[in-house]
């Protein structure tokens, strides 16, 4: 909600400055009177001081509501000219930017309404004058979970004409995905198509979103101020609090955690290495909830850095400057830059340098499929080796993306492990093009085995992946592979909380013998009654492949009965194949055992999603 100071000045137009009788619905008759008398005849600088004083008071009486308003605000409390900011997020980057935009806008005296997409009452769109949309892209060009409804509505025929609306979109994304910032792009086009006017060009932010986002935000505030500027500037206040205090921890302020345990979970004969990593949060005061992820800032593998140096035949000690910072090449490559994940900008530059027609084709619309395949199968080093190009070290350093942190679902509950965070890490380690390839962060974590090893981490809250508030609710958890990680946290949490709710886990991997992650813990939990049911699918233990979705269908009757009984449903793990297959299986189960048409089943399931009873954390 907008702050008191801002509201104080946002007055119906056409009234004489500086101050004249008015009644604020917020303050009510009496207080309005008092305030009126108080400010009567005060000189501007006094008013300035007072506004700051009040803002300070407000700050002392507990922070201004940071979180998102659940319901739409009381309409008449909203001045006629206001800015509405809507964000859609999975890992809170968009939210963080949206909140920053809000406070910057308020700081320049605008009245602002901030909404999470899922909370926005779409019918109000026609009332909006000025809308800023900050939204990320998930899955394979999909909206974040909290924005599905909003996006569906906007793209549907139900979407109203929006001639009255001026807008701008900030898209968040990752250029190593083929559908880069897809959602932002699509909504930007759609709003225009619905008749709205683009107030400012859309910007797309890559994982290192700060630079682009900052530019867009600053400009956006300015444009909004112009749009909404009250005729008189006299009462535009600058409260003391201009921006929200920088959070103590976060992506940019990670905590250094000590590695307590780094244990391989997969046995002999497993085709994969999956590890259990226990980190100490020490006295950082860092706290998390089951369902949250841990952001990990990795370093690139020394071997890979060496490979880059030899491909460039450059000297690691050479000083190179980027963004005004000058560091030795080796340090750029080890600490600062993304060396594995290929991204569009890097490919574009490389295609140009290498003069490879093949690569250049991939960047055209016809090349889309080849491009997609390339991203999946090639790391940057492969590009450099297969399509040689005359890179200079300096140019490469300036072209490569900033190294981005990786997320790992937290596999523990603080109610059980205190100031620790446990992770379940599948180590990306494969051979391609005749050489061994590693994943930056998973390999980095896998090799933090010595004593005194430290890792820079931060919490990525995810309140859309939470155990039911009511411990009496049953839960069905579908988490094959490392998707099981958050459910280890869930089961610990619910065991520590107590409560009658039953826990049903669906787990799958390739082999029972070597890849039954946390097997002995699940056996314990079953004995103790902390886990009530487990359904297992080991795909390669028999001729025909068996996956969790098949178990879901086999157990369909009970699955449906549990859901009917109010159970919450969770899916975590692979986004490409597993999540869609599981979704399809759920539709089957619901239509078969709830004797519903596919459409009704779909509807039933999306109601479940809206009630936050069908939550997914897929990657």
């Amino acid at each position, binding site marked *: 909600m907008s702050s008191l100071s801002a509201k104080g000045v946002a007055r119906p137009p056409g009234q004489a400055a500086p101050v004249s009788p008015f009644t604020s619905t917020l303050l009510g008759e009496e207080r309005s009177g008092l305030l009126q008398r108080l400010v009567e005849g005060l000189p501007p600088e006094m008013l300035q001081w007072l506004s700051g004083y009040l803002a300070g008071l407000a700050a002392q009486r507990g922070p201004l509501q940071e979180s998102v308003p659940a319901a739409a605000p009381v309409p008449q409390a909203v001045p006629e000219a206001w800015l509405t900011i809507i964000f859609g997020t999975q890992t809170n980057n968009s939210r963080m930017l949206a909140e920053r935009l809000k406070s910057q806008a308020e700081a320049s005296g605008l009245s602002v309404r901030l909404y999470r997409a899922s909370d926005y009452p779409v019918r109000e769109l026609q009332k909006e004058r000025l809308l800023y949309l900050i939204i990320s892209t998930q899955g394979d060009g999909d909206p974040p979970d909290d924005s599905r409804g909003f996006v569906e509505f906007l793209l549907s025929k139900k979407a109203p004409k929006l001639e009255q609306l001026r807008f701008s979109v900030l898209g968040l994304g990752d250029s190593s995905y083929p559908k880069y910032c897809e959602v932002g792009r699509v909504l930007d086009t759609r709003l225009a198509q619905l008749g709205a006017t683009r107030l400012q060009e859309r910007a797309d932010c890559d994982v290192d979103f700060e630079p682009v986002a900052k530019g867009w935000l600053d400009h956006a505030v300015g444009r909004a101020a112009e749009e909404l500027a009250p005729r008189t500037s006299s009462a535009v206040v600058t409260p003391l609090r201009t921006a929200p205090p920088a959070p103590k921890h976060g992506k940019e302020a990670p905590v250094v955690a000590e590695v307590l345990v780094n244990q391989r979970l997969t046995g002999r004969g497993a085709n994969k290495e999956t590890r259990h990593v226990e980190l100490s949060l020490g006295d950082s005061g860092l706290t998390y909830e089951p369902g949250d992820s841990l952001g990990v800032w990795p370093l690139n593998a020394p071997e890979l850095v060496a490979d880059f140096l030899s491909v460039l035949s450059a000297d690691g000690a050479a000083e190179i400057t980027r963004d005004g910072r000058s560091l030795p090449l080796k340090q750029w490559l080890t600490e600062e830059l993304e060396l594995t994940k290929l991204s569009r900008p890097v490919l574009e530059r490389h295609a140009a340098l290498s003069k490879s027609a093949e690569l250049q084709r991939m960047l055209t619309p016809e090349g889309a499929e080849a491009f997609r395949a390339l991203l999946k199968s090639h790391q940057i080093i492969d590009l450099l080796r297969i399509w040689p190009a005359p890179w200079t070290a300096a140019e490469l350093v300036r072209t490569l993306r900033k190294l981005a942190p990786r997320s790992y679902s937290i596999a523990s509950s603080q109610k059980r492990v205190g100031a620790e965070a446990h992770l379940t890490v599948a180590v990306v380690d494969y051979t391609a093009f005749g050489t061994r390839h590693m994943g930056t962060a998973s390999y980095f974590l896998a090799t933090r085995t010595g004593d005194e090893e430290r890792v820079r981490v931060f919490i990525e809250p995810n309140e859309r992946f939470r155990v039911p508030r009511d411990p009496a609710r049953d839960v069905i958890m579908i988490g094959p592979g490392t998707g099981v990680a958050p459910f280890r946290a869930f089961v610990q949490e619910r065991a520590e909380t107590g409560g009658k709710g039953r826990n049903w886990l669906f787990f799958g991997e390739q082999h*029972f013998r070597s890849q039954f992650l946390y097997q002995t813990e699940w056996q314990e939990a*079953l004995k103790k009654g902390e886990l009530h049911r487990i359904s297992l699918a080991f795909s390669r233990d028999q001729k025909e492949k068996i996956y969790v979705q098949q178990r879901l269908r086999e157990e369909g009757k009970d699955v449906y009965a549990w859901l009917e009984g109010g159970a919450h449903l969770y899916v975590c793990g692979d986004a490409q194949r597993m999540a869609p297959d599981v979704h399809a299986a759920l539709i089957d189960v619901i239509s078969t055992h709830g004797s519903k048409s596919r459409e009704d089943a779909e509807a039933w399931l999306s109601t479940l999603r809206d009630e936050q009873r069908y939550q997914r954390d897929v990657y």
Partner: protein
Amino acid sequence: MSTTKPPALSDVEHIKTKSRRLRGTLVESLADPVTGAIAASDTQLIKFHGSYQQDDRDSREERRQQKLEPDYSFMIRTRLPGGVLSPAQWLALDAISQQYANGTLRLTTRQAFQLHGVIKGNLKSTMAGINAALLDTISACGDVNRNVMCNPNPVDSRVHEEVYRWTMRLSEHLLPKTRAYYEVWLDKEKVAGSGEEEEPILGSTYLPRKFKIGVAVPPLNDVDVYSQDLGFIAIYEGERLLGFNVVVGGGMGATHGDAATFPRLADLIGFIPPEQLLFVAENVVKVQRDYGDRTSRKHARLKYTIEDRGIAWFVSELETRLGFSLQPARPFTFEHNGDLFGWKQGHDGRWHLTLRLESGRVADTPGARLLTGLREIARVHKGDFRLTANQNLIIAGVPAEARAEIDALVAAHGLDGFRRSSPLRLNALACVAMPTCGLAMAEAERYLPQIVSRLDERLEAHGLQKEKILLRITGCPNGCARPYLAEIALVGKAPGRYNLYLGGDVRGQRLNRLYRENIDEATILGVLEPLFAAYARERRPGEGFGDFTVRAGHVSAPSSPSPSSSLSS
């Protein structure tokens, strides 16, 4: 042990009682997807069906840290009276091992096969496969009569044929009557009385402990008849089988540091004509069934029943049940308890080739492709195969003209070890031990090749390389390779450490004695060195190493005179 109120029955007795004739919760256990193991009580019952739950001890600790349960798998043991099977059956077991087990076959010291590493999910298919090959695993383990051994004597096949037929009948006669095996493994539907089958011989809770029968055909004592609960020694005139001498109360098993447990040689109690064989065996079993100690597993074998109550008591108890008395034992002589390697011609002119298979392990290794070789042989062989009590294999009933082909296959696949190996290596036995045996304290099978080479070096140094010295190694004192009858025995005490026993004969008629306790390889070689030297210097013509160590007083002579000496003429 005289206590006022009768001590409680052992847990296993309770499990057997509740088991509905050995069914227990096996079906449920097999269906449980969360573990590769079966319920604790079922691990006792599954033995009666011929299988043991085991786990890979090499990876146990590592898996604990990986939050994985032990790598459970199952050992499956066949019932193979007298160790005789057809080439088709060999091929079937080979195929089953490739598909479901660890790709090796293990010939045991009781003339049977063991498959290792069968995971729970494959147990039923494996059992079904074995059954389809007209073989079974019933009573291969458990508190019942185990695989009945008999000398696969290829030299005089007429007597052998007859003795073998009796062996088959003994095994069949003493089988449990429960249909549990068919219901659990072969999905045969329940018939009336399922779960309450009569067990007229074994009783509703079966025997107090395992029970073993072996039949020897002198002059060979390859079955070590004195180590059996019940032994029969064939007495024959020329080609005519007259009957059997009866020995009772033998056994090897002991526990380190528990004086109440010990190996024991069986007592010779008389002679019976062939037609009394089944009746006598049945009643010996019944005496043990009714008097064996069901309160302590360590004290439950027939040898302790007899040790506690006296052999005189036993004979009279037996004879009362028989309603007649045994005839006086007949004279016989044992020459040795080893195998006769190489080609031997039988009475009908056909040939028999005895192959050396170290520790009975049939596997393909870079050195020798034994499994493949025997597969090739099984494909062309028209006779049968016979497993010996010394973990070796006889390719029996080969017509003269087929010998060359077999010889070629034998040579081509490194199966001709018997031609090249030193006498020490040829006759040595080792039990399975690590990594599958849950009771192993030290290596045995995996250690045998190394220790034999070290010993051969020393023997050679003393010019003893041609001496036929009998070495047996076990990973623990249970004595699965019958070590207490060897001239040199190593009995596992801890990883890399063994108790050294000396002074057995090569006829299976004298127990050896503990010579040094808990010593490592260096010490073993160290203490044997002077004995080899003395043996080389002071032995009498034809005197074996074991006999020498006793005569020269390096080990004390056994308290009781060796069993048959009183009779052997």
